[in-house]
């Protein structure tokens, strides 16, 4: 039976390689899909965890990205649309010896499954949620998603979509997430680095991965990938470092002393000291949230990537296990016979002319 102790998933005895995490199933994403790069990065990173492979579980919902578990040679469940965080919550809260990963997409996590996502985040269940955001519905062939930009022309919105998009990082921070990061499918080093930090985080970690859908939304993140454009677009967040970007760090993020909001400025000698130093570990979510609002949802200019927030707070499954232990300490191990009997019984005697008597 699953161990009840509070230790994390058991360490594996043999060193594993990326190959050990490849299942025997044929990968069926479209050629050129960003999901391949993420799969390779995850398979390449998994051995680093040093966990026994059998103690790792991938749970997904529905959508292109949610086929992910089939390709991982771990335990896995491809569930139903939007419900992966709920299912994974049940698994993680009942089995603390497992390392549970959720793979989801922008439609799965933010549309049909939005409720489960925010509640998993606020509870801080020990889950690592990889949210593949391609800003489009791929599996249903190209309708706009809850992260698509306003005015998006798709099959279901021939005159342009009317919905204001969600910013997944802002949403997660607003939902009390203790760990929130963003990375990009094509930047394997950055992706791996963020996954590593997510894996080490006790509690729920949400990693938004910008992922290219080359069929229905090709080039959605080109501004972040094209070397030249990236200069203006990408802000790399590193804990303890000043938030600077552009050629030679010519730009920086400062706090406007009047509004308190964050803004991008050209760094000068005068304002150098005002450039914000990124603190992912601060308890207050205010600055992380402000950072998440810097990006322009249309041009993607000033898009921070990296770990926005990584703070420790009590982990739900640990608290749940603690309550079970406390209950045993206080009441003793459950005694079924005593439970069923209760405190208010009477006995009907065997034999003729039997009598009843109260037991109390």
């Amino acid at each position, binding site marked *: 039976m*699953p161990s009840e102790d509070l230790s994390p998933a058991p360490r594996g005895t043999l060193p594993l390689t990326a190959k050990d995490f490849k*299942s025997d*199933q044929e990968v069926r994403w479209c050629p050129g899909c960003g999901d391949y790069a993420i799969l390779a990065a995850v398979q390449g990173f998994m051995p680093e965890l040093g966990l*026994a*492979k*059998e*103690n790792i*579980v991938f749970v997904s919902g529905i959508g292109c990205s949610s086929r992910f*578990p*089939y390709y*991982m*040679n*771990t*335990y*896995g*469940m*491809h*569930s*139903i649309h939007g*419900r992966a965080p*709920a*299912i*994974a*919550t*049940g*698994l993680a*809260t*009942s*089995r603390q*010896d*497992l390392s549970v990963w959720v793979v989801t997409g922008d439609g799965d996590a933010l549309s049909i499954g939005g*409720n*489960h996502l925010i*509640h998993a985040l606020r509870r801080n269940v020990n889950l690592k949620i990889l949210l593949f955001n391609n800003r489009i519905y791929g599996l249903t062939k190209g309708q706009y998603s809850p992260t698509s930009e306003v005015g998006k022309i798709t099959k279901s919105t021939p005159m342009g979509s009317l919905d204001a998009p969600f910013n997944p990082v802002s949403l997660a921070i607003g939902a009390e997430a203790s760990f929130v990061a963003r990375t990009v499918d094509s930047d394997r080093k950055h992706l791996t680095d963020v996954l590593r930090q997510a894996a080490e985080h006790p509690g729920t970690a949400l990693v938004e991965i910008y992922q290219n859908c080359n069929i229905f939304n090709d080039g959605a993140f080109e501004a972040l990938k094209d070397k030249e454009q990236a200069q203006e677009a990408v802000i790399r967040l590193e804990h303890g470092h000043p938030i600077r970007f552009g050629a030679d760090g010519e730009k920086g993020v400062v706090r406007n002393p009047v509004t308190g909001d964050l803004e991008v400025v050209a760094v000068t000698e005068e304002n150098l000291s005002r450039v914000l130093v990124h603190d992912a570990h601060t308890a207050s979510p205010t600055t992380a949230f402000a950072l998440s609002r810097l990006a322009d949802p249309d041009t993607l200019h000033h898009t921070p990537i990296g770990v926005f927030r990584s703070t420790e707070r009590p982990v739900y499954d640990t608290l749940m296990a603690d*309550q*079970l232990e406390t*209950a045993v300490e206080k*009441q*003793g*191990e*459950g005694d*079924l*016979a005593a*439970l*069923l*009997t*209760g405190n*208010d*019984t*009477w*006995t*009907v*005697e*065997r*034999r003729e002319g*039997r*009598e*009843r008597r*109260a037991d*109390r």
Partner: protein
Amino acid sequence: MTVEEDGRAAGPGGTAKEVRRLDRVVIRFAGDSGDGMQLTGDRFTSETASFGNDLSTLPNFPAEIRAPAGTLPGVSSFQLHFADHDILTPGDAPDVLVAMNPAALKANIADVPRGAEIIFNTDEFTKRAMAKVGYDVSPLEDGSLEAYRVHPVPLTTLTVEALKGFDLSRKDAGRSKNMFALGLLSWMYHRPTESTESFLRKKFAKKPEIAEANVTAFRAGWNFGETTEDFAISYEVAPATSAFPAGRYRNISGNLALSYGLVAAAERAELPLYLGSYPITPASDILHELSKHKNFGVRTFQAEDEIAGIGAALGAAFGGALAVTTTSGPGVALKSETIGLAVSLELPLLIVDIQRGGPSTGLPTKTEQADLLQAMYGRNGEAPVPVVAPRTPADCFDAAVEAARIAITYRTPVFLLSDGYLANGSEPWRVPEVDELPDLRTRFATGPNHTLADGTEVFWPYKRAPETLARPWAVPGTPGLEHRIGGIEKQNGTGNISYDPANHDFMVRIRQARIDGIAVPDLDVDDPAGDARVLVLGWGSTYGPVTAAVRRLRAAGRSVAQAHLRHLNPFPKNLGEVLKRYDKVIVPEMNLGQLATLLRAKYLVDAHSYNQVNGMPFKAEQLADTIREILDAQ
């Protein structure tokens, strides 16, 4: 109310008051939602249980927590039937009505037969309160109650008077009037009082002043009965010594029995119990109860919604727990997709549906049996799910254990269909010995279960056990058995994604065959005369009233057979043969004929449907009349 024998006994005060012996009594306490009628009923029940009567209860309350005071919708009542022999229902009509206000009288008087006793709280029969419910003239004065034996009692005034010595406002003191009424009724029926006094002291342990006030009011009520001339007669109902097999007994409600059944099943399966649930009337009490038993390793997770409740349970099932979700009809509707996933994943999962009046929000606090077809068919695709239904409050324990047996043995979600009447009703229960409960232990997969042509040993998650067609339960953490499962159709055996037409046809049929092949006991038919031509077939909570009706008919010399289904899917193997044995099959249901529809479809039998969907259980007399008419027409 049957009077068997009259007698006289001297009361402690020396006043000789008449004592009559009865074989059974039905009491109904009725008042405002805030008057504490449910508590009063519970206490009288507890006293009655420990005295050793057989009993059956029917709480009846509005969905609103505190409906406007003094109005008809705000009336809450508790009916209790107790006897010196075994009884099956909470009684058709009260012999005694306790009406705490005019609304309670108005809402209940139609159920009270002439000649019954009515105790009023006259303090509440003010002009204004009476006008609120449409009494222009006081019913106490207009002669409309002439046919009843009325006892006008100023319950509030007497209670306040009794609590004079306490530092309580008039209003606060008046709150104890329900305990005064309980004391009075306890005197009338010679109930033991220690348990109520100790209950009150425990309940108000943190407010000893309030505890003592309630005990004082309770005793004052008793003494009032003892001394006042209005109550000249008290009644004895002897313990039901011959009604019960030997054993240790307690009183238990359906939801409590069901909760205990789940804990017991997990213990007997040696699996941790995991409940994923979202609060919903009338199922929430199971969540409350199970959350108290963490020392049994029970994990309860109050989810963000119904879908997450079952989702978490399914996740825990994947991890090797005995997983349960509890809900009522509207919640089942939300859980449907996940139930379908559980069908596809072939994992054990209990779905407890405490049925209530529908559709939609319907009647949250009233009973109904109208989710049977939802449980049977309420999913996309061919998604068969076994269905088990308890028949009495105490039977909820055994039904829960049986549902767990099926889920674990056959690796399938299972519906447990209780209802509001069973959930809140209570009756004596013989406490089982732990070792008489079934052994539900199962084996998790530990290694390869299949050899490929080249001799390689592999694990196939969908390779089935030949006798049950169940697949292996391979829980994460088991080395070498890493596998992926999901809602997409899969190849039999390997479990790999498969869109192959022949494989899908095979999988649909084998999932059905697995459920059809579940071993369930044959249906017992009760036909003491052996010559009955008419069978009454019920399921679920109609057992009590149906059995009571059948007894009445037999007592009148009529011959009628009775059978009651616990297993609705699959049906017992002998059901078809049983149905064909009778000229007529009557199916009483608290819906518009859902079981009858299933029987007609499967067995081509002309089942005669008799239906009531008024949120209340059948009355035995009304059922007996119906069956009698059908017998007469034969």
